[in-house]
């Protein structure tokens, strides 16, 4: 991303001769079409998540046993269930809409929680040093050395399952990476670097961290968020698949994939549409994150 793009440098040379094309290229460079598509997709999923009640044609748990395993409309099915129905005759499209709502809620809430908690602990560790830092580092090592799936299984098995608890648990996933990154970057910024310079000007820690360190390390944290978001969707899918995630009749993307797996040969549409949504959403977040990171960095402009 940092290197000079051959396309743009060519445009720069040819700019006086072809102003219209140059303007187009600049527009495309500033707003890459792929990223715009990704943003459009995320906006669409958000609209679907918010307006699920209005969009879904059926209730997600309404069964129609006469129309079990109906294929989608484009595979010879009927238009009333245009993405087909599952083994209990529930409309796949309606379930997909509600799944998007639940999965996005979990993924966004958990990602934000992890990022906030991890970054806060990391910055506090870098600022306070001493005992607090040791404690945070120990927690980081503990979390990093345990497969998160096992921690999640243990917590859900002992404390039972409810949606808020599940979201909170997912929020714990990945906090240690934010903590590690923010602690390391904050410490390196403080030693004889810009943060040290600002501090010796007499700035309060609020100013040093809020105005200088946080914006400077934001690009790294954003990349981590874009890595973490798909992981949480997949983790949620995995736990739902194991029966410890979102409990039926409530549905989520992972839950749909998990239960659809049994019918993969007979009625693959049950599994394919939620899987496609997972892939598109995680891909979009990655693309947007990459673009945002470059966009927020004045040295790459």
């Amino acid at each position, binding site marked *: 991303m940092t290197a000079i793009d051959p396309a743009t440098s060519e445009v720069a040379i040819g700019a006086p001769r072809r102003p219209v094309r140059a303007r187009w290229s600049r527009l495309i460079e500033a707003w890459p079409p792929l990223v715009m598509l990704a943003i459009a997709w995320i906006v669409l999923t958000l609209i679907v998540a918010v307006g699920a009640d209005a969009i879904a044609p059926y209730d997600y748990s309404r069964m129609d046993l006469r129309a079990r395993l109906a294929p989608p409309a484009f595979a010879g099915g009927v238009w009333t269930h245009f993405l087909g129905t599952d083994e209990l005759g529930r409309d796949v499209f309606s379930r997909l809409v509600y799944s998007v709502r639940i999965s996005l809620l979990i993924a966004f809430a958990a990602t934000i929680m992890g990022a906030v908690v991890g970054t806060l602990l990391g910055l506090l560790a870098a600022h306070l040093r001493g005992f607090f830092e040791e404690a945070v580092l120990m927690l980081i090592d503990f979390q990093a050395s345990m497969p998160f799936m096992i921690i999640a299984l243990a917590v859900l098995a002992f404390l039972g399952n409810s949606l808020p608890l599940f979201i909170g648990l997912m929020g714990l996933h990945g906090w240690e990476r934010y903590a590690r990154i923010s602690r390391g970057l904050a410490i390196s910024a403080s030693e004889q670097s810009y943060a040290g*310079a600002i501090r010796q*000007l007499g700035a309060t820690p609020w100013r040093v961290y809020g105005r200088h360190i946080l914006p400077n390390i934001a690009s790294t944290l954003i990349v981590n968020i874009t890595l973490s978001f798909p992981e949480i969707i997949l983790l949620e899918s995995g736990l739902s698949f194991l029966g410890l995630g979102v409990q039926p009749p409530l549905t989520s993307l992972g839950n749909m994939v998990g239960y659809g797996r049994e019918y993969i040969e007979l009625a693959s549409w049950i599994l394919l549409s939620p899987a496609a949504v997972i892939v598109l959403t995680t891909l979009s977040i990655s693309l947007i994150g990459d673009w945002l990171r470059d966009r927020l960095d*004045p040295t790459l402009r």
Partner: protein
Amino acid sequence: MTPLLEVRGLARHYRVRRPGGLWGRTAVLKAVDGVSFAIGRGRTLGLVGESGCGKSTAARLALGLLPATSGDVLFDGQPLSTRQDAAWRASRRKLQLVFQDTLGALDRRLPIGLQIMEPLDIHGIGTRAERLEKTKDLFTAVGLLPHMFDRYPHELSGGQRQRVVLARALVAQPALIACDEPISALDVSIQAQVINLLHDLREQFGVAYLFISHDLRVVRQVSDEVAVMYLGRIVEQGTPDRLFRQPEHPYTRALVSAIPVATPNRARQRIILKGDPPSPVDVPAGCAFHPRCALAGPRCRVETPALRSMPGGHRVACHLAGETAAAA
């Protein structure tokens, strides 16, 4: 009249572990070991010495950026604390440090204009319009062009960045600026510009400098007084004319003889020091310089020389000073 900054017996020791992993013995690294000096208002003290002799640490101690192991720092007659509380932060308005690495010292995500204004924001000086006006005035005073106000640090040259850093240090009108090798990263023509700038700013704002460098010619040019450091101690101190024309300490003599001159054919003795400076963990007994000193006698190996006064306010830490001046 009390000097602006007075430093008495300042020392900073670090505990280090000798090579040998976990079982290595601990030792004490004496980065700065009993340094005293004073800087008057609007005066410049040059601090010279080899790399690793404790110049930068001494400056940080003198500004209250590092806690001292022992010794006192008096600023305006008041002891300077190093606890990073509100009083310490408020005192930063008067004491500034200019770093050598200007790209590192600036926040690469903020336009330089805002960064120069930052001390005013931090200390809440004036209204926003006044701050902006003051920043813009200073911006031109240090020789930056107005259209650069919204540039980012990486878009400037090294000399321009040095001006930005100086402007940031000056904007809140401090009484003292410590310049830690402010020009060694610049090429010669820009060095001259920055030195002239420092000089002009001193005339204009009456600011005092603690000027750290290993470039003796520059130090001679800018300083009212020069202190030579060797392994954490000041070995000689005096006016630049006296110190560079008639150095007393063998170490200073070696340094001075290494200054390149425009007329190399002139007969003069070039003293080349043998060996590296000893590690500050194993400071030799007696005079720290004796293993490299051509004149060292038996007394130098046993007794640490104190900094003693010579005629004309000159001070030197050498047993042989005064006797050897004629011999050498």
